[in-house]
């Protein structure tokens, strides 16, 4: 994947001490992280399109790329590009908040290449050899951690991820400790440390399937419905401070209330994964009640974004960044909040668990919350790192078209998968004579075709997004 990362936008000129739009030269180490993130995002969507086609043309690219390989690449690229995005955001945001240069820009650059090469080798490994062979040659026998959803990485890659995270956290923590401590930087650091700490549960893989699944969720759920929301909140708050000029005290108060609700609802909300995996029945009560409250912090995030933009004290020339900030507020609430609530109550989940309903929720939640907040950050910071307050009007128009294409396409992907899921539940799990899994899949193929079409539109939006980085270089707005 390093080639696609290299093919992604490369700004003219680059950062110089003369760049008056960034406060600290070391903030520009974020740029390669964002470029890599976008490159890996392209790879993720290409493999998504392959899988979408395999849903309807079952033998497409078989045996070269079996579905399980494509899915592993699709989900792992998602995780890695979001991590690149969070890291880039951290390297940009923490020096600015701390009012000092990054502790070690060199370490940040080395970490970038280590992470990119390790990630690329892992993806090549997935594609080049059978998974069992990859497990053997990477020494999975010594410490078996592979072959669990989202945690498919070879154990040595997992160790590499921990080392990269430690280097990153050391660098940022030193910066924060020596500099100004703000609520935004504190929340960002709490989220990032939490991300690293909960990842350690990926090394725990007992023979007992129930225990395995129970603590697997300590990585997956406590990431995306826990500490990642702290990172998201901090990133959104940072951009809103910049583009609205609203008093930091007000924005940070909102941030604390939102993340308080996130953890108050989301930690026990883990219980919505403990309904049917061998865990005690009381989780159906705890999980239903608390996860039904999980939309609250997401709704507050929507209110937060709109309120701050309404109360803005300045007209920031970067309209695209403001659009992404509002968009992530809305789409995170819809995808994570509404589509999560749709199937989170135990009596409903009894019927929907492990169907396309889950897939529909996963798509809009990840896009709305995490993909979009990373693009918010990229949209705000990239022009600054390229030496201007905002991109030219022409470039912003293209970027906003990309925003709408991707966002609307994702709404349709979600709706088509929801339709497929409802029919799947109806045919396979309800009624007197339930159909088998494959018979059901054949009957709902129409919806998978529609999903694939929406996926193509999404891909077009993503390509347009990349084009926007190359539009109107010469006539950049000075604001």
């Amino acid at each position, binding site marked *: 994947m390093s080639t696609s990362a290299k093919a992604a936008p490369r700004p003219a000129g680059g950062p110089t001490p003369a760049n008056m739009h960034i406060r600290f030269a070391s903030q520009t180490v974020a740029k390669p992280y964002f470029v890599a993130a976008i490159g890996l995002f392209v790879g993720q969507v290409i493999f998504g399109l392959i899988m979408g086609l395999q*849903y309807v043309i*079952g*033998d497409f690219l*078989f*045996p070269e790329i*079996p*579905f*399980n*390989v494509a*899915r*592993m690449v699709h989900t792992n690229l998602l995780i890695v590009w979001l991590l690149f995005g969070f890291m880039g955001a951290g390297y940009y945001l923490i020096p600015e908040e701390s009012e000092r240069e990054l502790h070690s820009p060199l370490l940040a650059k080395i970490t970038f290449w280590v992470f990119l090469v390790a990630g690329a080798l892992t993806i090549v490994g997935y594609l080049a050899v059978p*998974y*069992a062979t990859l497990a053997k040659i990477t020494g*999975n026998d010594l410490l*078996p951690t*592979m*072959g*669990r*959803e989202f945690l*498919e990485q070879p154990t040595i890659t997992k160790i590499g991820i921990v080392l990269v995270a430690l280097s990153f956290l050391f660098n940022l923590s030193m910066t924060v400790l020596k500099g100004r401590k703000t*609520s935004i930087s504190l929340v960002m650091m709490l989220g990032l440390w939490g991300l690293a700490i909960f990842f350690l549960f990926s090394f725990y*893989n007992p*023979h*007992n*399937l*129930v*225990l395995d*699944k*129970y603590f697997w969720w300590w990585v997956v759920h406590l990431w995306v419905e826990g500490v990642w929301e702290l990172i998201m909140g901090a990133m959104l708050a940072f951009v809103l401070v910049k583009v609205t000029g609203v008093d930091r*005290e*007000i924005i940070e*108060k*909102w941030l*604390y*209330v939102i993340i*308080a609700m996130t*953890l*108050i609802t989301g*930690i*026990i909300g883990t219980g919505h994964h*403990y309904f*049917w*995996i*061998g*865990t005690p*029945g009381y989780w159906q009560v*705890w999980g239903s009640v608390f996860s039904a409250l999980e939309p609250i912090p997401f709704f507050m995030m929507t209110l937060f974004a709109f309120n701050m933009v309404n109360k803005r004290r300045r007209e920031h020339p970067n309209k695209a960044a403001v659009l992404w900030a509002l968009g992530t507020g809305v789409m995170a609430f819809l995808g994570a909040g509404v589509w999560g609530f749709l199937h989170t109550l135990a009596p409903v989940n009894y*019927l929907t*668990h*492990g169907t396309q309903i*889950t*897939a529909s929720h996963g798509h809009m939640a990840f896009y709305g919350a995490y993909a979009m907040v990373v693009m918010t950050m990229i949209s705000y910071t990239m022009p600054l790192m390229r030496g201007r307050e905002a991109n030219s009007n022409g470039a912003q128009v293209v970027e906003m078209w990309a925003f709408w294409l991707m966002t609307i396409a994702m709404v349709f992907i979600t709706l088509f998968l929801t339709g497929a899921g409802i029919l799947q539940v109806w045919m*396979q*799990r*309800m009624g007197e004579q*339930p*159909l088998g*899994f*494959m018979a059901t*899949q054949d009957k709902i193929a129409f919806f998978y075709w529609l999903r694939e079409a929406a996926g193509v539109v999404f891909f077009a939006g993503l390509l347009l997004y990349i084009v926007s980085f190359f539009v109107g270089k010469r006539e950049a707005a000075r604001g």
Partner: protein
Amino acid sequence: MSASFTKSTARNIFYGGAVFFFLLFLALTVDTVQTLPKRDNRANLTEQVARGKKLWEVNNCIGCHTLLGEGAYFAPELGNVYQRRGPEFIKAWIKAQPTGAPGRRQMPNFHLNDAELDDLVAFLKYASEIDTNKWPPNIEG
């Protein structure tokens, strides 16, 4: 938000709430772990089952199938496949892959020997006897 509700109040709610609910989560986890021996079928968790689980993992079965509803949604639920199909059918099916039927979803051949097939089936049998609060709703998974 009103001016009397200050940032430090909000911060205290955050720290207090996070700590309280994480401790509550730990308490529920301790209780769950203590209750599990009655539910998780550990009496039948043999060496063979452990070997089967490892085969399940290193062939990335979760990349297409679900197990107790978790995984990919491309291929059938296998938490109850032992009851749905029985051990002999499962082994014959795995050996016969891929079907090569045009346009149909294809499962790779993983070149498992007879002993490995028995290990995998033992794992699926063990998994099927976990107390899942009566999930899935019917035998089709």
